[in-house]
C-alpha cells in the first residue's frame, strides 16, 4: 500500500466519547457519506464532483457508490482543471445548483484561488445582493503521509482571511455530518477542511438529517486551570493531552470551535474568564494563521481575562518536510500541547 495510507491505517479508531446507551455508532467517513446521500436525495440541485469521487476508493470512502446510486450526472469525476471547474461550480451555484467540489488535498485549491477569492467569496456583495453562491468546497488535510510540501498544506489560515467565506473544520463523526448538511444548506461558499486521521473516528451519528449551526463551538472537556482551543484533529490531540494533564492535577478545558468563520468568540471568552490561561492549537502555520486571529480578538476585547501569556502550538513556519523524522518535528500534537500547558502553569 502506498505510504500515504500506512500511517492512517495504523491509527486507532477513536470512539467518540459522547455517545449514550443504544445510540447508533457510525464511522466518520460513513457519516459524511450519509450526509451526501441524504442531501443528494433531498435536493435534485445538489451534485458532487471532484477528481476521483467515482473511483474505487471513493474519496477516502466518503463518496463510495454514490455515483452508482445517483448516476454520473450528479456524482462525477472531473478533468484536472481545477480553476475552470471551480468557476464552473460557482457559475452553476449562481444559477441554482448546489455544487459540492471535492479535493483530496487542499494544496490543489491554490490553483483555484481566482475563482474562490475573486469570484465566489465576492459575488453576492459585488452585485449588491443579486445572486448567491451555495457552494461547498471540501478538501482533506493529513499528517505523516510522507508526501512533502505540495501535498500537505493545511490552508485554514489562508481562507480565514477572506471575507465572504465560511470555514468549517469538524472533529467528530457527529459534527462531520451535521456541519456538512448545514454547509450544503447554506447559500454561501463554504470551505470544509477534513482531516485524514479523523476519517477513521467513530461516534454517535443520528440517522436523520440534522444541522449544526455555524459559529457555535463546543466544550469537549471542562476544566478550570487552562483552556486549550482549536479545531479538527488537534482537538483529539488536545483531549489526549488533557487526560494526561489531569493525572498531574491540571484540569484543562478543551474548546472545539468547529467553524473558524464564523468563530465562537463568546465560548472562548467564557472559558477564559474561568481559566485565564490559553493554549491555542492548530495544524496550520503559525504566522498570520488562525491562532493569530484568536490572539488578536483577546487583546482587543478580552485582555483582562488573561492571567498569563497565550501559547500557540502550531506547525512551524516551514513547508512540510517529507521525511518522517522531520515530520515528527513538524507536526504538533499531544506532547507539545502538554508541554505548553505545563509551561503556562509554571508562570
Amino acid at each position: 500500500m502506498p505510504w500515504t495510507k500506512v500511517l492512517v491505517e495504523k491509527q486507532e479508531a477513536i470512539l467518540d466519547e459522547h455517545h449514550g446507551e443504544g445510540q447508533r455508532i457510525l464511522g466518520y467517513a460513513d457519516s459524511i457519506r450519509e450526509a451526501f446521500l441524504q442531501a443528494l436525495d433531498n435536493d435534485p440541485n445538489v451534485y458532487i464532483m471532484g477528481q476521483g469521487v467515482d473511483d474505487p476508493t471513493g474519496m477516502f470512502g466518503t463518496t463510495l457508490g454514490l455515483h452508482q446510486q445517483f448516476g454520473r450526472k450528479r456524482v462525477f469525476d472531473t478533468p484536472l482543471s481545477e480553476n475552470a471547474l471551480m468557476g464552473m461550480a460557482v457559475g452553476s451555484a449562481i444559477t441554482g445548483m448546489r455544487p459540492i467540489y471535492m479535493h483530496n488535498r487542499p494544496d490543489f485549491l491554490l490553483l483555484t484561488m481566482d475563482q474562490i477569492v475573486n469570484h465566489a467569496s465576492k459575488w453576492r456583495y459585488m452585485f449588491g445582493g443579486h445572486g448567491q453562491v451555495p457552494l461547498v468546497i471540501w478538501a482533506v488535510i493529513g499528517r505523516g503521509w510522507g508526501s512533502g510540501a505540495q501535498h500537505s498544506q493545511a490552508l485554514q489560515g489562508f481562507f480565514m482571511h477572506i471575507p465572504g467565506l465560511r470555514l468549517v473544520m469538524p472533529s467528530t463523526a457527529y459534527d462531520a455530518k451535521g456541519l456538512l448538511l448545514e454547509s450544503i444548506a447554506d447559500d454561501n461558499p463554504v470551505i470544509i477542511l477534513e482531516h485524514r486521521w479523523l476519517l477513521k473516528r467513530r461516534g454517535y451519528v443520528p440517522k436523520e438529517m440534522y444541522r449544526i449551526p455555524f459559529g457555535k463551538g463546543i466544550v469537549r472537556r471542562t476544566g478550570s486551570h487552562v483552556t486549550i482551543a482549536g479545531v479538527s484533529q488537534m482537538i483529539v490531540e488536545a483531549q489526549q493531552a488533557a487526560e494526561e494533564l489531569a493525572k498531574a492535577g491540571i484540569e484543562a478545558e478543551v474548546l472545539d470551535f468547529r467553524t473558524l468563520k464564523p468563530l465562537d468568540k463568546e465560548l472562548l471568552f467564557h472559558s477564559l474568564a474561568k481559566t485565564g490561561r490559553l493554549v491555542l492549537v492548530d495544524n496550520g502555520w503559525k504566522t498570520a494563521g488562525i491562532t493569530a486571529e484568536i490572539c488578536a480578538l483577546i487583546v482587543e476585547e478580552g485582555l483582562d481575562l488573561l492571567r498569563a501569556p497565550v501559547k500557540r502550538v502550531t506547525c512551524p513556519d516551514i513547508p512540510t518536510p517529507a521525511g518522517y523524522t522531520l515530520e515528527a518535528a513538524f507536526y504538533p500534537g499531544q506532547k507539545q500541547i502538554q508541554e505548553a500547558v505545563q509551561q503556562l502553569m509554571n508562570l
Partner: protein
Amino acid sequence: MRNWKILPQHEGYCLENVLQADAIEMFRKLSLIRAVQLKIEELYHHDEMKTPVHLCIGQEAIAVGVCQALKKSDYVFSNHRGHGHYLAKGGDLRAMIAELYCKETGCSHGRGGSMHLVDVDAGLPGSSSIVAGGIPLAVGAAFSSSRKETGLVSVAFFGDGAADEGVLYESINFAVLEKLPVLFVCENNFYAVCSPIFGRHAHDGIFKRFMGMGIPCHKVDGTNVLEVYKLFRKLAADARSGDGPAFIECPAYRWRGHSGAGSDVNMGYRSQDELDLWAKRCPVESYRDFLLNKGVITVTELKNINEKVDSDIEAAFIYAQKSALPAGNDLMKWLFSYGKG
C-alpha cells in the same frame, strides 16, 4: 499592425431570413448602446461617475447580434467592457447609469461599479472584471441548464486578452466533454490595454487555437450585426438542441482608449491610420445606411427610434443623478445570503 490582417473583409449586409422586426430591433439597440456611451463620454470629465468605464464604441454589433439570437432567460456573462452586453441583453438602462454614478439605485446598489453590471431578470447573472474570470461561470450556467433541462443557452463574452488565459482552455475542454450549451464569444479588438495581440500570440487566428479540442470554431465579422446575428441564431439553436458548445471569434475595433473617455491614439501604441480604417466601418452607421437604403426603415421611423433612445437616456441620467448615494453604514450589507436552502 505588422503583417496581421486585422480588418476583415466586409461581406455586405444581407437580410435573407431575418425578420424585419429583428432587423429594426437590432438597429435600436445599436443606437442605444452607441448613444449611451457617447453620453457617458460627454459627462465623464465631470468626475461624477467615480468608477472607471470601458467603452465598447466600435464593438456594438457583437453584443447586439449575439443577444438578438438569445431568449430573455438565456444567460450572458459579461466582462469589464460590459455596457454593450448589458444593454443588448435587455438590462435596465436606469439601473446601469445609476451604477455608474455609484448610487443605491444602481443595478449593483453602487457596490459593483461599472465593471459589475447585473440584471438577473434579463438573464445577466453578473460580470467579472478579472480577465477570463467569467468564462467558467458561463460554463457553470450551461451546466445548470443541462442538468435542470431548461434548454437555456449560456454565453461568455470576453476579449482577445482572455484568450491568453488557461482557464479558457480548461473551460472549453469541460464544455465539450459535457456537451454544454455554452457559446464562447471572443471579441477580438486586437489589444489588451496597450498590448497588441501580435505581442501576445505568435500568430493570427484565435479561433484556430481550439479546433483540435472538438469544439466547432467560427470567425465572424464583428462589425456586421446581421452576420453575427445569423451565425448565433444557428449556434444558439444547435446548443439548445444538445449539440454542445461553440467558439466564435468576432473581430472588431475599440475606438476609444482602454478605459475612460476619448481617443488614446496620442499614447502612441496604435496609429490614427489604424483607427481611421476601422472607423470607416462603423457598425452603427453602416447598418443604419443599409436599412434606409433598403427601405427597411423610413427616415421618420429612424428619427422616432433615435428620439426615444435619447429621451430614455436623458431620463436615465437624471434618475441616476438624482438617486441617493449608498449610506456608509450600509457598508456591511450583502456579504452573506441568509435564506437557508
